[in-house]
């Protein structure tokens, strides 16, 4: 046991004396969570729009006021002629133009119908879509407030309600994903690099010639990273609770247990990689290409799995991160207990055992 503590101490020296690993361990999680939380978002805020008002009457003014009063839009420019719309877009600041037809109020009263054209800059289709939806709902809102008291026959008013993330905050979607990526990165990449580093330096040979058993060497290399990954997971959860006001509905204890499980899965993958890779660079490349890319693309973190083509959906099943994201989303946002995620948990445990078994086998072959 004393040997073991000495070994772990040495491992911490390695980590704390290497700026690069310190940065990956502690800088990266914080930077990523802040980046995803503040900068990379699907929500729209303070979008600059322009207005071309052909009628300039009471109704259009009311609508314009309502739109500019919302926090989503800022009216940057009043355009006088159709021809200027193009110029406004080309300057790049304006994301949408509202074009009110002539005699807007008059048409509304006389024909019960008036038209607004919403022109959006679709170079970024997602934003364009959101802008259109937001403006539509403001207009609908306005209409409803106007029609109060007037009875109309057959009117269908859909009432949508978004549950679990009512404000559609994208940070709620990103936190589980970022947490997954970071745990994967720290656990799998850092361990595989640190094991291959010993191989490269020749110290692995010295360790294998020592009375330490191979599995003790591996466990000694892995334990510090379990410890650091747990700290990382805690930091991420705290940041999202206190900075992004993300509610964690479910049990923090269960969340912790599931995270430890996923950390062990990733560590097992890291060990597996280190049995294949001979150099630190190879270990890093395999971790990045073999783990990071699938996690980002196929785990449902950014692109929904249900809208992927069937072959990709099948591939996504073998990605451990996919199951972990399902689990932590359910715990964090829906507040469910183990009764609802036991299947996913079992799958993760199974994968972990498989990876550990495989790396032990690989490791033995190497020693022969």
């Amino acid at each position, binding site marked *: 046991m004393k040997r073991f503590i000495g070994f772990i101490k040495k491992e911490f020296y390695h980590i704390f004396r290497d700026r690069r690993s310190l940065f990956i361990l502690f800088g990266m999680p914080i930077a990523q969570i802040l980046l995803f939380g503040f900068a990379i978002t699907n929500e729209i805020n303070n979008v600059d729009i322009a207005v071309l008002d052909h009628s300039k009457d009471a109704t259009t003014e009311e609508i314009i006021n309502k739109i500019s009063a919302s926090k989503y839009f800022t009216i940057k420019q009043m355009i006088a002629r159709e021809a200027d719309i193009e110029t406004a877009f080309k300057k790049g600041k304006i994301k949408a133009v509202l074009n009110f037809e002539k005699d807007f109020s008059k048409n509304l009263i006389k024909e019960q119908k008036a038209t607004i054209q919403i022109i959006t800059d679709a170079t970024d289709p997602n934003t364009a879509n959101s802008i259109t939806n937001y403006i539509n709902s403001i207009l609908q809102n306005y209409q409803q407030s106007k029609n109060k008291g007037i009875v109309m026959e057959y009117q269908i008013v859909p009432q949508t309600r978004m549950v679990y993330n009512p404000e559609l905050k994208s940070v709620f979607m990103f936190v589980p994903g970022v947490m997954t990526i970071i745990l994967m990165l720290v656990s799998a990449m850092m361990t595989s690099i640190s094991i291959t580093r010993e191989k490269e330096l020749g110290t692995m*040979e010295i360790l294998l010639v020592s009375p330490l058993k191979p599995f003790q060497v591996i466990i000694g290399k892995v334990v510090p990273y379990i410890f650091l990954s747990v700290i990382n997971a805690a930091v991420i959860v705290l940041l999202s609770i206190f900075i992004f006001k993300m509610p964690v509905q479910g049990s923090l204890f269960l969340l912790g247990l599931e995270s430890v499980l996923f950390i062990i899965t990733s560590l097992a993958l890291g060990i597996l990689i280190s049995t294949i890779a001979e150099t630190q660079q190879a270990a890093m490349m395999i971790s990045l290409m073999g783990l990071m890319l699938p996690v980002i693309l196929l785990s449902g973190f950014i692109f929904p799995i249900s809208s992927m083509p069937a072959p990709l959906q099948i591939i996504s099943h073998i990605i451990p991160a996919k199951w972990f994201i399902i689990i932590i989303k359910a715990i964090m946002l829906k507040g469910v207990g183990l009764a609802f995620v036991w299947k996913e948990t079992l799958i993760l445990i199974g994968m972990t055992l498989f990876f550990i078994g495989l790396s032990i086998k690989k490791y033995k072959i190497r020693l022969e």
Partner: protein
Amino acid sequence: MKKENVIEAHQLTKTFGDFTAVNAISFEVKKGEIFGFLGANGAGKTTAMKMLIGISKPSSGSAKVAGFDVYTQTESIKKNIGYMSQKFALYDDLTVNENITFFGGIYGLPRKKIKEKREQLVSELGLENISNKLVGSLPLGWKQKLSFSVSLLHEPKIVFLDEPTGGVDPITRRQFWEMIYKAADQGTTIFVTTHYMDEAEYCDRVSIMVEGKIEALDTPKKLKEQFNVDSMNDVFLKLARNIE
């Protein structure tokens, strides 16, 4: 005086698929002996050594190291040997003291003993002023001497040195060999591979491996007589030519 054998190898063989890296070698090494294990690159020296230190299983044949079997008692072998590889193998990002403490620790030395050994070692090597500096900042010669001392830390019966003096200047090599002599005087058996032929002259006995086989084994003096040449270098060249 008849001394006990600390290494006995009999028909020791290692094959990788069709390739025979070590072909039925047999030899003994006596206690306190400096045994030179020579051969060109790729002659099978390192493979043979790996079988003896218990990190590679022989394909056939038998061997005992420090009285323990290389098939079944590798754990006991590991406790009784020291090893220094051709790659310099201390941790660059640990200080001199930390390296000594770490390696003492994995061999299970008690803390008091480690402290004692550390102080002794640091003063012997004259490293008092820099014992808290990172090993990475030391010159290669010092690292190598430190590395050798670390491999002796747990007072092993046998030390295996795999090309220990690669890339060091002649003066340091000289000092290094003085350390080897000192350890041998204290009863430690030295098993050393090298391809510096002048170093071969320093050994009590040398074996020369060519293409997986031991082609010659005797004291440097007798080998020179046998091949009728003046230096070990010529012995080596003659052997290598004969094979070709």
